[in-house]
């Protein structure tokens, strides 16, 4: 009898194992344009070579920075029709929206059993964790505190070394202005671009450690250093193109390529964009960290989580394990123009990416506000509004007040 039960159990078990290796798995993302779509398709193809019986359903929703995709995802999650796994920025974007209401499965034990838990830097694991449990698996890493510059113009206006302090940076901008070029290309039609500059200035002003403390309640937003950061933002506005409110970030980066602007403070997806335009990293354009943030890696990371009640949970786990592997990470990232979230994966042969991957292993990691890692999305919208107001009115006091209100609204104001 025991034997029979054992056989039955075994057959059921093996059946489920075979079953797990077939069927479907749905991956939801907003990777529809340029290198990112290419990277996703290449990765899905590679996955299919390993698991030919699992059909991958590639559910993508177009739209910049995932605004449309996020709306679709929310509707599906609320309606009880979650995808098997979905792309989400590391941190609060996932935590506030889906982890707190109890819609996600913790992944810590899986990461440990796959032997990859310690392959990611601690700072990143902190960002994707809530109350000690990891809720999403990082695939890509972008850095946002990088200033790119047009090498030709940089030399032409008589600059010989990359600015390392705030004053040197302002001097460089002055030189560009005197030579008749747009010193700092900015395109903030979508608001987050200006917010991203402001958050980098906050990192520079507070330092990574204190900046991170702002978002776990150990340090109040009501701080003189916030004023300083906002004042620096106002100062930078003297050097941007006047039509910044009509441009998107690509248009702004393009000004460098067209020899119209010298500097561009943008996430390193701009690096990928320059390459698509035909520029060679290190030859046509150079880069340096925003002065004051040399020791910090301001991070934006695409991660994948496991919703509760995923229709193909077993396959989703197989896919997640694959995405966490060095094989997937080394394949996906160089095509997209990001670096692997795993420290032991190969970043490819681009000099910028190699250097960034090195920095990623050693520097302190700070989460981005505007890309949803540092704070709940309700804060992000209000923060962007505040900076947008600042850029237009140059009223530091008012912008700070708006940020304080935003912090209060999501219980981040500690005093």
């Amino acid at each position, binding site marked *: 009898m025991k034997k029979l039960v054992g056989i039955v159990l075994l057959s059921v078990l093996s059946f489920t194992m075979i079953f797990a290796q077939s069927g479907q798995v749905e991956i939801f993302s907003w990777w529809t344009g340029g290198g990112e779509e290419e990277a996703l398709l290449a990765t899905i193809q590679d996955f299919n070579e390993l698991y030919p019986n699992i059909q991958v359903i590639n559910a993508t929703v177009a739209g910049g920075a995932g605004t449309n995709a996020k709306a679709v995802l929310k509707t599906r999650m609320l309606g009880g029709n979650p995808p098997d796994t979905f792309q989400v920025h590391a941190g609060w974007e996932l935590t506030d929206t889906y982890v707190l209401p*109890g819609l996600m499965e913790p992944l810590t034990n899986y990461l440990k059993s796959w032997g990859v838990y310690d392959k990611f830097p601690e700072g990143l694991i902190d960002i994707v964790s809530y109350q000690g449990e990891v809720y999403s698996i990082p695939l890509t890493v972008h850095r946002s505190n990088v200033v790119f510059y047009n090498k030709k113009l940089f030399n032409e206006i008589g600059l010989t070394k990359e600015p390392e302090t705030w004053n040197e940076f302002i001097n460089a901008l002055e030189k560009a202005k005197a030579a008749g070029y747009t010193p700092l290309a900015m395109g903030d039609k979508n608001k987050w671009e200006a917010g991203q500059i402001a958050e980098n200035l906050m990192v520079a002003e507070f330092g990574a450690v204190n900046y991170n403390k702002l978002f776990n309640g150990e340090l109040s937003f009501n701080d003189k250093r916030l004023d300083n950061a906002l004042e620096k933002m106002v100062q930078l506005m003297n050097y941007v193109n006047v*039509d910044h409110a*009509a441009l998107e970030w690509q248009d702004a980066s393009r000004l460098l390529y067209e020899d119209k602007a010298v500097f561009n403070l943008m996430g390193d997806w701009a690096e990928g964009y320059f390459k698509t335009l035909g520029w060679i990293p290190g030859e046509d354009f150079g880069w340096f960290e925003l002065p004051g943030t040399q020791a910090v890696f301001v991070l934006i990371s695409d991660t994948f989580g496991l919703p509760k009640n995923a229709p193909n949970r077993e396959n989703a786990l197989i896919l997640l394990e694959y995405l966490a592997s060095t094989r997937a990470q080394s394949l996906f990232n160089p095509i997209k123009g990001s670096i692997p979230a795993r420290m032991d994966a190969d970043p490819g042969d681009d000099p910028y990416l190699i250097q960034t991957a090195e920095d990623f292993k050693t520097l302190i990691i700070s989460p981005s506000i505007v890309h949803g890692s540092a704070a709940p*999305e309700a804060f992000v919208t*209000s923060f962007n509004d505040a900076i947008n*107001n600042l850029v*237009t009115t140059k009223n530091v006091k008012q912008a700070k007040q708006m940020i304080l209100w935003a912090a209060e609204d999501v219980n981040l104001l500690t005093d």
Partner: protein
Amino acid sequence: MSVQKKKARAGFFIILPSLAFIGIFVYYFIFLTIRTSTSNWNSFTSLLSGEYKFVGLRNYQRLFNDPRFQTDLWNTLFFTLFFLAGCIILGIFLANIIDKKLRGSSFFQNLFLFPMAISYVVTGTVWGWIFAPGNIPTSPQGINLLLENLGWSNLQWMWYTSTQSIGKFNLALIPVIIAATWQMSGYVMAMYLAGLRAIPEEMIEAAQVDGATGTQLFWRIKFPMLRPITLSAMIVIGHMSLKIFDLIYAMTGSGPNNVTDMPAIYMFEQMFRSNRYAIASAIAIIMLIMVAAVIIPYLYSSFRGER
């Protein structure tokens, strides 16, 4: 049972399904939105908790104290006003020209109607390029480049990225109003054209025999007869303008310091980005009230007219 009664009964059963659907998907959902707008559901967690906590009009209060929403309301007012005026004036003007039945007028009639067939998103993107200011004065774009080539550089302007305003009217709305008028005036023209062609020939001829000039003919005879058309045009354009989203979202976003922001854009951001469902529902209800304020008097008057 009389035939009359039987017919009425059959009629009732025929429309019953649609009544039921409208009841659920329109009125019940409006009720749900009102309910949400008076709740504390301003995060995913509180929404999914399923627990309804009534907070009265707190979300509305918060909105009316919000400078961005105040800007939105002013923008809606001015946008509606100028968009309506633009469409009606241009519509009448074009309809009158087409009505003269000159050679090629049917070609132009179709040409003027074309924009309406295009999606607002396309219109917004293209007019966004046209009115993109460029980095003036050194490297202008679009219309600014045209002005420079014509030697009128002093007319160059920041267009929809301008933060200038006259009183509460943000000048950045002007390019948006132009784009919207371009899109919808052909439709208004078609409405007026139908109205003009419906005016009996004899009436016009009689007036002409009495010696009415062209202007007199228009203002004394045609215009009064077109009043119902004007009213319907105002309703159609008015409710479109109160809930406008796609054109502005594609063309300008919400602009620097929300100079071209509209309630619908704010609602979208609050709902799908900030997860503030209660606030977003409150905006939706305010928009509903605005549209109702335009539509209900019209429905009432036409209902009375029918009786």
